[in-house]
């Protein structure tokens, strides 16, 4: 058969992480190692995150073809906590709509001896593409590509869930909202299933659920109350404002009435259910302020755990290269 690119490009021959592009193809042990490594970096209660010399003298480049101050900042902070030097490139997508420009950008930054690219791009598969073309010894971390994957976000969500729930096996998790356009949801579904939860549900109107959603390994609900019944974890997704223009939804108001999370609706979930959101949140669209700021919300913890998880992934990829003799 024809030769194929596949997800194994993110693993070396020993099964260690070279790039971090997607959750797909990674096994439970590896995901658990990421969580355990993140644990070692995580802030102790009341104390700041440790700064470690792991990547001293290394150059990490944030290559963002799509604006995101928040994600870029947490990657930058993670890199600095690992003592790496950080370059930030914000490349407007309009200027690089052609592949050759994307490759040219990559080559130029490689010439600055950067050993890791943290990439965000509006097209699905962009991180794979860059990883395929990156020089040996250069790691690529996917910080979000199109609708495809956002694996560090998914892992920080897993980290948050483990912190609160201990183990994954008995859990039922509901992901609510715009599944169709969400790279976060795709990565979360893969991670949850790999870690062996009892059930992953997706909840939303048919216009926001892919027609083949079931093939992702989820149960599909169109009714929020039915979807939230007895779940341990509720993940609310961000609803992009521009979705209102594309005949996907009639109005924000109707969306909130049907799928907005309120304390009342949350009553059908387990009494100790936690509420998550990858941010940035639209209060009064995806959820009520009293839920967002309420005792079940772990939204701000997600943000701070994000730094430890990104430190874990960056250091693991760099160690793989060092072990392969790939450092410059």
């Amino acid at each position, binding site marked *: 058969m024809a030769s194929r690119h596949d997800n194994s490009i993110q693993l070396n021959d020993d099964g260690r992480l070279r790039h971090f592009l997607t959750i797909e193809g990674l096994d439970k042990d590896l995901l658990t190692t990421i969580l355990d490594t993140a644990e070692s970096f995580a802030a102790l209660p009341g104390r700041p995150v440790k700064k470690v010399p792991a990547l001293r003298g290394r150059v990490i480049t944030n290559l963002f073809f799509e604006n995101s101050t928040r994600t870029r900042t947490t990657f930058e902070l993670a890199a600095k906590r690992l003592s790496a030097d950080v370059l930030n490139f914000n490349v407007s997508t309009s200027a690089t709509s052609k592949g050759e420009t994307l*490759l040219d950008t990559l080559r130029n930054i490689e010439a600055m001896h950067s050993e890791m690219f943290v990439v965000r791009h509006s097209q699905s598969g962009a991180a794979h593409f860059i990883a395929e073309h990156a020089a040996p010894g250069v790691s690529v971390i996917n910080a979000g590509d*199109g609708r495809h994957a956002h694996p560090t976000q998914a892992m920080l969500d897993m980290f948050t869930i483990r912190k609160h729930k201990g183990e994954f096996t008995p859990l039922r998790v509901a992901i609510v909202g715009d599944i169709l356009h969400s790279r976060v949801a795709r990565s979360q579904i893969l991670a949850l299933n790999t870690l062996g939860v009892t059930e992953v549900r997706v909840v939303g109107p048919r216009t926001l659920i*892919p027609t083949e959603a079931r093939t992702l390994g989820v149960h599909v609900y169109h009714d929020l109350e039915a979807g939230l019944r007895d779940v341990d974890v509720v993940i609310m997704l961000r609803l992009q404002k521009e979705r209102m223009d594309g005949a996907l939804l009639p109005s924000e108001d109707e969306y909130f009435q049907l799928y907005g999370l309120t304390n009342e609706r949350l009553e059908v979930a387990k009494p100790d259910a936690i509420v998550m959101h990858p941010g940035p949140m639209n209060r009064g669209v995806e959820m009520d302020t009293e839920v967002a700021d309420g005792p079940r919300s772990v939204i701000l913890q997600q943000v701070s755990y994000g730094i430890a998880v990104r430190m874990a992934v960056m250091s693991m990829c760099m160690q793989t290269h060092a072990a392969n003799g790939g450092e410059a």
Partner: protein
Amino acid sequence: MSLSIIGGRLIDPANGIDEQLDLHIEGETIIAVGKPPGGFVADESIDATGLIVIPGLVDMAASLREPGYTAKGTLESETLAAAKGGITTLVCTPDTEPVIDTPADIEFIHRMARKLQQARVLTAAALTHNLEGRQLSSVAALKAAGCVALSNARKPLANTLVERRALEYAATFDMTVFLRPEDRHLHAEGCAHEGAVATRLGLPGVPSAAETVAVARDLALAEHTGARVHFRALSTAGSARMLREAQAAKLPVSADVAVHQLHLTEMDVEGFDARCHVSPPLRTLADRDALRQAVAEGTIAAICSDHQPHDPDAKDAPFPDTEPGISSLETLLALTLRLVEEGVLPLQEAIARVTCGPADLLRLPYGRLNVGLPGDVCIFDPEDHWTLRTDQMISEGRNTPFEGWEFSGCVTHTLFNGRVIYRKA
């Protein structure tokens, strides 16, 4: 110049022939099948013992890229590639720059092709001016200039009234209209079949309905106008079913399928393989099997290359940013023979789908080995097992997902107008 092809197994589906017969050519023309005419002495004879002798292939749709996109291919490079693939007649698509929509554009292509003498290059001219879907082309003038069909190429007609008028006007001159059925709104920004793989990879999907909605609309207009409509490059089971029903109702409608649709599925897009970025997209196994069945029963009477050579940059980007298409002149025959190996249809039928099948749809006398017709012949060795290597391709476009595939059946000679234009080294 005269030539005899001796000792081969001659398969000529149009005439129901499959037996060991010699073929004799004088000048540009076939003068005898079987015994040579009395006193005939060939200047050259080709020993075809163990080989299969068939009509030169007829390809209903190939983008030859000239004029306008010569970094991707030229008439010279692509007709040489066609010769290596055993193709002697091909219909080039009008999506060049400028678009083929005037008699002068047609004349340019025909004159270049006559000079090259590598293949019979025919033209499908634009159905509307500049393929914009607004102003009708000068159909009578284009027909007089020698185009064999009118086509919307890969630019779907958005306006149904324009489509109705275009079909009516084409029917006035008894011209066949090639339609690539696609509803542009349902297609939207899609780049892969809206199925399990695209869902997992987060690739914007093209639903099957983007094609079936257009086929339903086009069939309704074909019935209304009485125009001869030929669907290009069908990709879904639903389209095949609708076509079958329309033919049963005696509508003058036909279709072809791109040969890659009979072998690849959405699974091949896995890993963001841009070589498998095609339009219409690779669909499900069920769609592939339905298309195979439609080809086997003759509902789809032509298999075409849907050749789209690209420069390397066109495929060197994140999947959605790459240009769709496969460079496929050199694998049309091999992939068609593979259908026989896989039990989809008998050899003679398979050869019909790439010779007299498309020729009949075009109402042209090619794709057959009748006395008096041009000596367009393909000879292949069914026992020659080979592996496709892109660095050995003749086409300017090396964009093919079939690299590394092993095939049985390799062209040894191609004759065009009685002259050997390709001989395997």
